[in-house]
């Protein structure tokens, strides 16, 4: 029993990372209706910006918010220059665009900051959290920041005019345009928000996985999986999904004999495909109703 609790706790700790990323994935999905394959690389780039600011002697929270602000502008700029012209192109072409973006960001980060692994400081320290061996202060801090972020987003989308406008633009673009919402800018804003959330996720994750241009490869995958598991249409579901993926992954590694540890990732993925087969829109997603 104690093993189980410990593994669940450890799962929650890693799950916090995935939950952050899943949240960023869902944000952009809400805004543009596609999964952004370059999301992880964007987050990685933002983290490097924060690292650079810290190197220049900016205090931690200054670097944190500075990087978030820069990422927001960067996200808007990417949408305006790259994806706006592709807005009417087919989904396949847009995915090719994401792959291109991925490769550009990854390679530029490698050139600017090279591929050596850098350590990234944590504002919470890495002492064991409340005496527990499995969760450190940083992981607990990450957990709470994720929850705060979720709360803020909920507030933003539920109670502000611009949040409402963004939701309208995402669900029914044509009708939104008719009531005077600037749909194009709402999408750009969605990109900006997603980039900013990605920056937060990257900065929180960096002390755990270390900073290097390929740091997000695994994390993004789990983020996707968490988002899909929870349902792409529900930010809270995505966060829950992220935590679930972390826990599942840990339990599979512990309890399934022989192959458990080697096949941690495939087993977690298999479970998710199973969930999808029974609930095709994720655990908390709205079913899509199609008109004939």
């Amino acid at each position, binding site marked *: 029993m104690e093993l189980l609790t410990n593994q669940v706790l450890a799962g929650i700790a890693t799950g916090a990372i995935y939950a952050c990323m899943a949240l960023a994935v869902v944000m952009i999905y809400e805004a543009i209706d*596609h999964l952004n394959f370059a999301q992880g690389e964007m987050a990685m780039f933002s983290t490097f910006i924060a690292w650079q600011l810290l190197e220049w002697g900016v205090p931690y929270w200054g670097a944190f918010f500075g990087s978030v602000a820069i990422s927001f502008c960067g996200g808007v700029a990417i949408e305006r220059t790259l994806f706006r012209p592709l807005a009417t*192109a087919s989904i396949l072409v847009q995915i*090719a665009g994401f792959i291109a973006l991925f490769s550009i960001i990854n390679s530029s980060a490698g050139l600017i900051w090279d591929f050596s692994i850098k350590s990234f400081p944590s504002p919470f320290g890495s002492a064991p959290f409340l005496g527990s061996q499995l969760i450190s202060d940083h992981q607990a801090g990450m957990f709470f920041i994720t929850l705060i972020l979720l709360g803020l987003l909920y507030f933003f989308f539920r109670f502000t005019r611009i949040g409402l406008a963004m939701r309208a633009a995402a669900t029914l673009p044509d009708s939104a345009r008719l009531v005077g919402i600037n749909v194009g800018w709402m999408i750009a804003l969605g990109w900006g928000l997603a980039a900013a959330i990605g920056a937060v996720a990257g900065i929180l994750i960096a002390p755990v996985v270390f900073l290097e241009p390929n740091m997000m490869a695994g994390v993004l995958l789990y983020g996707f999986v968490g988002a899909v598991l929870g349902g792409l249409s529900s930010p809270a579901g995505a966060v829950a999904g992220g935590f679930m993926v972390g826990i599942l992954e840990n339990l599979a590694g512990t309890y399934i004999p022989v192959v458990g540890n080697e096949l941690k990732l495939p087993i977690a993925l298999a479970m998710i495909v199973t969930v999808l087969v029974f609930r095709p829109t994720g655990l908390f997603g709205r079913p899509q109703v199609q008109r004939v």
Partner: protein
Amino acid sequence: MSTVQESVTQTSSLGTVRETVPQVPATAGGRDLSPVATAAIARQQQKTAQTIARVASLVALALMLMAPMFVRHFVVFQFTQIIIYGIAIMSLNILTGASGQFSLGHSAFFAVGAYTTAILMEHGGMNYILTLPFAGCVCFVFGFLFGLPALRLSGVYLALATFSLAIAMPQFLKLGTFEHFTGGVQGLVVTKPDAPFGLKIDQDVWLYYVTLAVALIMYVLSVNLLNSRTGRAMMAIRDNQIAASSMGVNLALYKTLSFGISAGMTGVAGGLAAIVVAFVAPDGYSITFANALFLGMVIGGVGWLPGSLAGAAFIVLIPNVAESISKGLAGAVFGVFIIAVIFLFPNGARQAAYLAANWIRKLVGSTR
């Protein structure tokens, strides 16, 4: 009406999945023409287009047949690779272009094909050509079985399911339990076959011709498939699922079938790759490779089979070009190339080919 339909089928016999065939304008020189005259003009234009396409494909084939005589060995090897990737991209094209499902996991089927061939050759001592049908069949079954749960998924959810297949595959291949057969992390070295009947040509050149022959067979089979009842059922599903099922198309059967067929073809390509490269290893079939195949399909033009070769050439050659432009920024240059292509030709090589064909037609027309 009959001529429009006729023209559509004629285009598709050249390997185009029936889709947005440009409509022939109903007026010529500003005057309205009688239906008969319009039809005649349409037929004339269609004929020239067809001739151009035929001539172009014959020229391409002749060039491919003669290529090994004029280029260095490494280039022959690269050509072989392009053709192999071309087969894999063509299979993806059948899945996406014809049945409208999409997959980011074709690297997994490619890997299964490659390993089937490698294991049969090294452990079973089988002739390399004979392993290819086996690779195809194993992958067909695998793809068909994978297609079953995929039935319930569509869009991003299907993308994620196939994506996880691509991620999981290298890990499966590394698994200690099968190490005796798969060689684990180290992979498996395959003996490169010599040319038969004591022919005095290089191994690489011989394998180039083998690959070319297999590719041609695959191409003819695919074109026929798309023109058959099965192909029409797939396209009906792509265009409108609900309408297709109310017309009596068995959705479940044809969706899984297209997954199976596509996987089987990719498996044959994988088998060829194992023979040509003479080596299989888990990390060669990562998600990066799946992405590359996907990219090749988009750049070649979704639903246009000859474009697969152009897409394959892009994913094989452009990374090298990018590296020669800048070593440190190779990835970025590659990305810029992709963006340039999708901005200029959102429909890929297909669009470029249409433009070229129109241009040639005008040229031919003006000299007449």
